[in-house]
């Protein structure tokens, strides 16, 4: 090694001297899977999971119910999208559910499930979910896991900041991601007249305390920002609801740049109680605007759609004290109220801190009337320092959404640095962080947005999946991770794929839902106009070119099963009633060549498939749900004759028995 004379070091040093901060490759955060993970997520065959998780389907438009901690998919609940698997949105009974002011819209972009609440606690009665695209709020009955109501919202673009509910589900709210001209104004305006012509509208949807029925009580007309998420106060902050606003720059193009310019956007605090009082006192202005209100009647098993024509509104600029703005760094996503209702944690997705606001300080600042300017000249902006409880420093990158465990801790997702961060609410210190695979949006703690979180489990809902599962070509399932939050340190338990995109989830102890479960529908309570409650009542009725088939299904035959006299040009409505009165005996119904879907009929239920025969000949129909040992025998035939044929209507079952 002698030839390595000192002179040789000259060029080598020259290279190294130029180095900036450098060093060895930092070690990757190791896998943090809990050693006992398998035991903690194992639910023995035949045993129930401890918790229900309801995950939004995102672009699937649906909601998926999973069992936690096993991560087993229990059911995809069709909400905004047609579901040929069970006929939702295809059957005559359910088609009206997807009616809107734009006509039939059989799909949507479902984002945020919200469990109904009583005294600020999840009560397990209903699940609300927003349709972000064609602005809608749906209500799912958790006794039947069926979508029973869909209410469209007028005057708004995308119903993103929705459907968060107040402490006793007095209201669920909606607010617009895309401000736009109100429905009653001429919308044919230049897009660059945004600041002048565009408006936001906060919808307050009243929820009937006992029945859950929704109606659009009123809307607040607000400045044309983009409204992202919301959460209502609870306890001391009961009367208030908080919305995050971004694009307070009011840009109408290239928002990724133009809506990211201000260091601070806002949390909009709305005194909904005051708004309610103003409406009750007749201060509202009714404006026109069409919106569909679709209700599924659980006795008739039939939905109806009513087109509403107007809504009460309050222009917030005309009613001082209705809204206040809290400056919030930067393009905030989540605004999440602590279980005690005292603090609001906001997550600016481009911010380097998590600001935590104090409700008490907010009220004090409002009393002092020392503002940091006004929006539109009249809407007060409070001073950041006046309303701030404190900032969580260096939490990570891209804070998005926070929930709570009821033990004084908060958990926030970090989209950019791909992790979940645990911090303490009182001193705002970071306790722990755990990687997420990859880039989480929302997270969910069991009861984590309620007054009494159950805690125990946390779900991190991710936007990027990559290498987590066996690859399935370019299109991959989305991912979520189950994390144990019982200890001081978070522990990864399980990783499972989801349907669509899980924007948000709500988790609830299973017992709260189990106790209300409906096992089948009682036949005697079936008030469907086309119900056939006994096989002897089955019939085929022709009325012009409309043919109604009153059919029954029971193990293991469909009655009638030989139907003749159907002609090309007919519209055939097959009303199938499932006569079974036992748990888990659905029957399917399918016709060869049907252009819409099949049906899945629950015991005691009546469903109708509209069929327009296209070809002359014999057309088989059969049960598609393997119901019994003789399921394969559960079948029948239509005879389709040419238009104008004089083959008479004839229906039968059991005629022409086989002779040996």
């Amino acid at each position: 090694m002698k030839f390595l004379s000192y002179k040789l070091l000259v060029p080598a040093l020259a290279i190294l001297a130029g180095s900036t901060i450098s060093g060895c490759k930092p070690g990757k955060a190791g896998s943090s899977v809990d050693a006992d993970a398998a035991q903690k997520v194992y639910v023995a065959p035949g045993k129930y999971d401890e918790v229900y998780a309801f995950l939004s389907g995102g672009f699937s438009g649906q909601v998926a119910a999973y069992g936690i901690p096993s991560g087993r998919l229990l059911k995809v609940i069709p909400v905004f999208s047609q579901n040929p698997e069970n006929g939702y949105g295809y059957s005559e009974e359910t088609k009206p559910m997807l009616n809107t002011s734009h006509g039939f819209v059989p799909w949507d972009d479902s984002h945020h499930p919200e469990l109904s609440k009583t005294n600020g606690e999840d009560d397990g009665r209903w699940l609300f979910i927003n349709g972000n695209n064609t602005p809608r709020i749906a209500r799912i009955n958790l006794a039947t896991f069926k979508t029973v109501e869909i209410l469209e919202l007028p005057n708004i673009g995308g119903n993103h900041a929705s459907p968060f509910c107040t402490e006793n589900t007095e209201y669920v709210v909606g607010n617009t991601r895309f401000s736009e001209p109100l429905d009653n104004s001429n919308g044919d305006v230049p897009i660059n007249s945004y600041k002048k012509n565009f408006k936001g509208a906060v919808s307050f949807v009243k929820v009937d305390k006992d029945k859950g029925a929704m109606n659009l009580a009123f809307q607040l007309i607000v400045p044309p920002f983009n409204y992202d998420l919301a959460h209502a106060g609870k306890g001391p902050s009961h009367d208030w609801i908080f919305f995050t606003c971004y694009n307070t720059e009011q840009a109408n193009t290239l928002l990724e740049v133009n809506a990211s310019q201000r260091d601070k956007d806002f949390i909009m605090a709305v005194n909904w109680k005051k708004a309610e009082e103003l409406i009750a006192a007749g201060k509202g202005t009714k404006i026109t605007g069409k919106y569909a209100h679709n209700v599924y009647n659980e006795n008739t098993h039939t939905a109806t759609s009513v087109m509403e024509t107007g809504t009460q509104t309050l222009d917030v600029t005309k009613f001082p004290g209705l809204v206040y703005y809290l400056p919030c760094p930067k393009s905030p996503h989540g605004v999440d109220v602590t279980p005690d209702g005292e603090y609001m944690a906001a997550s600016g997705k481009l911010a380097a801190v998590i600001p935590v606001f104090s409700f008490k300080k907010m009220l004090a600042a409002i009393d002092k009337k020392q503002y940091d300017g006004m929006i539109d000249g009249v809407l007060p902006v409070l001073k950041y320092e006046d309303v701030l409880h404190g900032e969580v420093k260096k939490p990570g990158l891209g804070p998005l959404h926070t929930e709570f465990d009821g033990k004084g801790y908060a958990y926030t997702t970090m989209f950019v640095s791909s992790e979940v961060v645990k911090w303490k609410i009182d001193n705002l210190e970071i306790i722990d962080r755990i990687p997420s695979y990859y880039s989480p949006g929302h997270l969910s703690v069991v009861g984590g947005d309620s007054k009494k979180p159950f805690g125990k489990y946390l779900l991190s809902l991710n936007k990027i999946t990559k290498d987590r599962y066996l690859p399935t070509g370019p299109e991959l399932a989305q991912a979520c991770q189950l994390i144990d939050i019982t200890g001081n340190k978070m522990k990864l338990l399980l990783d499972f794929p989801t349907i669509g995109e899980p924007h948000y989830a709500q988790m609830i102890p299973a017992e709260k839902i189990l106790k209300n479960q409906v096992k089948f529908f009682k036949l005697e309570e079936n008030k469907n106009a086309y119900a056939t409650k006994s096989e002897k009542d089955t019939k085929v009725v022709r009325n012009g070119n409309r043919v109604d088939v009153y059919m029954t299904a029971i193990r293991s035959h469909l009655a009638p099963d030989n139907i003749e006299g159907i002609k090309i040009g007919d519209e055939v409505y097959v009303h199938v009633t499932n006569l079974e009165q036992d748990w888990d005996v659905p029957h399917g119904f399918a016709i060869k060549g049907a252009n819409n879907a099949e049906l899945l009929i629950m015991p005691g239920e009546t469903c109708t498939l509209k069929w327009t025969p296209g070809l002359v000949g014999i057309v088989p129909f059969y049960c598609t749900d393997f119901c019994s040992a003789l399921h394969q025998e559960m079948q029948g035939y239509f005879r389709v004759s040419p238009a104008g044929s004089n083959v008479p209507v004839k229906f039968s079952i059991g005629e022409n028995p086989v002779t040996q």
Partner: protein
Amino acid sequence: MKTHTRVLIFISCVLMLTAYFLPLWHILLDAPQYPEGLEMKIWLNGLSGSIQQINGLNHYIGMKFISVDDFKEFRILPYVFGALTLIGFAAAIARSRRLLWAWFIGLCLFAIVGFGDFYVWEYNYGHNLNPHAAIKVEGMNYQPPLFGYKQLLNFTAGSLPDTGGILVGVGGLLAAAALFYKPQQSSNKIK
């Protein structure tokens, strides 16, 4: 000039020529959501690798787009480097110690200027950010390291020699050896 010196020069020059076929340097980017990592390779005459993805990410922080056309260096580097290597061969063929010195100094200058230039580019990319960028972190610059690793927000950025760079480096060491190595007895062993 002794034979072993000529052999060293020759081997060195051959190693240098690999720069025309192999990447010299690479910049690595590792982030939680990029478990497979992103890589940009720097060649004597251009760039390759995940430049599009890297540009896609950099636009959030307002970094200028990386484009091969912006680097005049890539147009002249193959010639400068070729000329240098020719001097090396010439030194071996002409048995000229003077040429050998010229070659060695040329190589040292090439390394110093090259790294200096690399540093300036990195500085400019890391500091000259679009003031309208979506993500602005106070006090943050995004200059990648010249050599080694550095944390840039959620990315671990690495800057290391690639195959060609390593071979050229070895070539450089051999050039130095040709100049300074004096066997005590005979050159039999090396031969």
